[in-house]
């Protein structure tokens, strides 16, 4: 996700006044609306799984294994060799994948933004040390370092979160630090300093509101990355242990029988793509609204 970081960081943010005026003038953004509706619908379907499907995701019906989509009682068919209902597994599995996307990203936004604020505001030695640490993390491919940490801690859902939290904050630190450097030089910050406000108050009340939008926009792309990462870990057998349904591990299971049951690996992938697109659209929409120029 290093790329995203650099892209977003290079887009300058306007003054606060401009941003607010813009928000009033163009509240409606099509990407935001479409992406938001898509995500709400998908999340609602996953949460309402018990009411939308009568099948337990782990219920095995060997006699009906490998039933194609649109067959009686199974809209998306069943998997092989167990005969579990694919729709039900996708809906229940989505709970895990959405949890990874939202849970992993929320923590990294908070940690990374805090580090970036501190580095950009205080500058000097603190900034130097923090940014060297960030540089080192960027040398590792995100996936490889997360894999290495999970390897050491042992595969589990909690350890997956710990690994993503430990690595994911660096992008936000770099972006927010850059934005903070710009804002800190502005006059209203000088004024706040002259008034004798505490560093904490200046950072939270004066700088944060100006820089947080960039972190929010980036967090949508980051959420896509984290959902893909969570699914990849599930696919590699390093995520949530079976029989708990999860989209990545469903694709791995389906790969074995893809010659005869193509829908088993295909459909969960489409679910991932739809979630990813909705987060990206929300990110694009937020960028339209919050950034002064397109």
């Amino acid at each position, binding site marked *: *996700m*290093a*790329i995203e970081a*650099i*892209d977003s960081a290079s887009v300058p943010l306007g003054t606060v006044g401009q941003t607010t005026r813009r928000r009033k003038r163009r509240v409606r953004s099509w990407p935001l609306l479409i992406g938001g509706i898509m995500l709400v619908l998908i999340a609602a379907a996953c949460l309402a799984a018990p009411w939308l499907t009568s099948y337990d995701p782990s219920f095995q019906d060997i006699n009906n294994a490998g039933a194609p989509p649109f067959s009686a009682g199974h809209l998306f068919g069943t998997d092989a060799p167990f005969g579990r209902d694919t729709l039900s597994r996708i809906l229940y599995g989505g709970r895990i994948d959405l949890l990874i996307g939202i849970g992993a990203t929320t923590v990294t936004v908070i940690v990374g933004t805090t580090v970036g604020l501190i580095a950009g505001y205080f500058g000097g030695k603190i900034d130097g040390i923090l940014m*060297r*640490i960030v*540089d*080192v*993390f*960027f*040398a*590792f*491919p*995100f*996936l*490889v*370092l997360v*894999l*290495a*940490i*999970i*390897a*050491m*801690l*042992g*595969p589990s859902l909690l350890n997956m979160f710990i690994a993503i939290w430990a690595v994911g904050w660096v992008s936000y630190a770099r972006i927010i630090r850059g934005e903070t450097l710009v804002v800190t030089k502005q006059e209203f910050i000088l004024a706040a300093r002259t008034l004798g406000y505490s560093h904490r108050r200046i950072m939270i009340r004066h700088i944060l509101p100006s820089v947080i939008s960039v972190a929010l926009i980036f967090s949508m*792309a980051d959420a*896509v990355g984290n959902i*893909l990462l969570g*699914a*990849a870990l599930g*696919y*590699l*057998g*390093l995520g949530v242990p079976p029989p708990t349904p999860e989209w*990545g591990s469903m*694709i*791995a299971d*389906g*790969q074995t029988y*893809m*010659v005869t049951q*193509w829908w088993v*690996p*295909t459909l*969960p*992938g489409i679910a*991932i*793509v*739809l*979630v*990813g*697109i909705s*987060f*990206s*659209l929300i990110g694009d929409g937020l960028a339209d609204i919050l950034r002064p120029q397109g």
Partner: protein
Amino acid sequence: MGRFGFVVPRLIQMVPVAIGITIITFFLIHLIPGDPVAALLGNHYSATSAHALRAALGLDKPLWNQYLIFLGNLFHGNLGDSIYYEEPVRDLIFSRVEPTIWLVAYAAVLAAVISVPLGMLAALKRNSVIDQAIRAFFLVALAMPAFWVGIILVLIFSIHFTIFPVSGFGNDVPSHIKDLFLPALTIALSFGAILIRSLRNSTLSVLRADYVDTARAKGLPNRVILGRHVLRNALLSTVTIFGVNIAFLMGATVIVENVFALGGIGQLLVSAIQQRDYAVVQGITLLIAFFVIGINLLTDVAYGLLDPRVQQ
């Protein structure tokens, strides 16, 4: 200083990052819950072997001392031993490195072939139907998990049309090129999408540059402006964009190797995690990170050689 004078400060900047990489990989072993020696030895655990390894890693010494021992071993090319394969990690990695290098290079070439024309087209025809279509491709491509794309490509081109093999790496160069096409394409679709967006942005900024205005004012034909001024400068930024995104490429390679069972480093890494072969995980992590900063340096040097402005 000469032509390569600009390389020196870059090399100096790299030193703290390289040291940082060794510190992080060193600490990985200390994340293992419980006794790292028991974990490192696995089934080979015995009182004598544990004592020997404890002494070799200096685990009875303070942390900074352990790190120095780790660093010393590293300088001698010693990455420890694999408990599963019962051979030095270094030899193990080198015996698996070939498919990985092929795949990374192949994917990079395919991604460049896809993204350079499309990225520039999107910028030149800004806000046209083509631009919108390319942006839609970007939106979808970045939401697709690489392992799933690989499976879909196999379903279409290996199972339905039987053009390419389902897995494997082949034995000679022509079969490498054929067998690795689907894995490389899988990576190139997402990697290329990232390159397209960066290239579109860099081409747009070149189009806004003063020298393009000058060329227009001189009355040069559009064809010459695009070919001589815009294209060359935008291609130059491709080098940098490539370097910045090399870590992403390596991450995708690890996953895709497992989809197609290519037997490279990525597959070794994942199987080592499943076998709790900690020394192998540590060695591969370290090597990939050094590879990434190495490529970063190379792209910086290439950029400097291509663009004389950097050398001053």
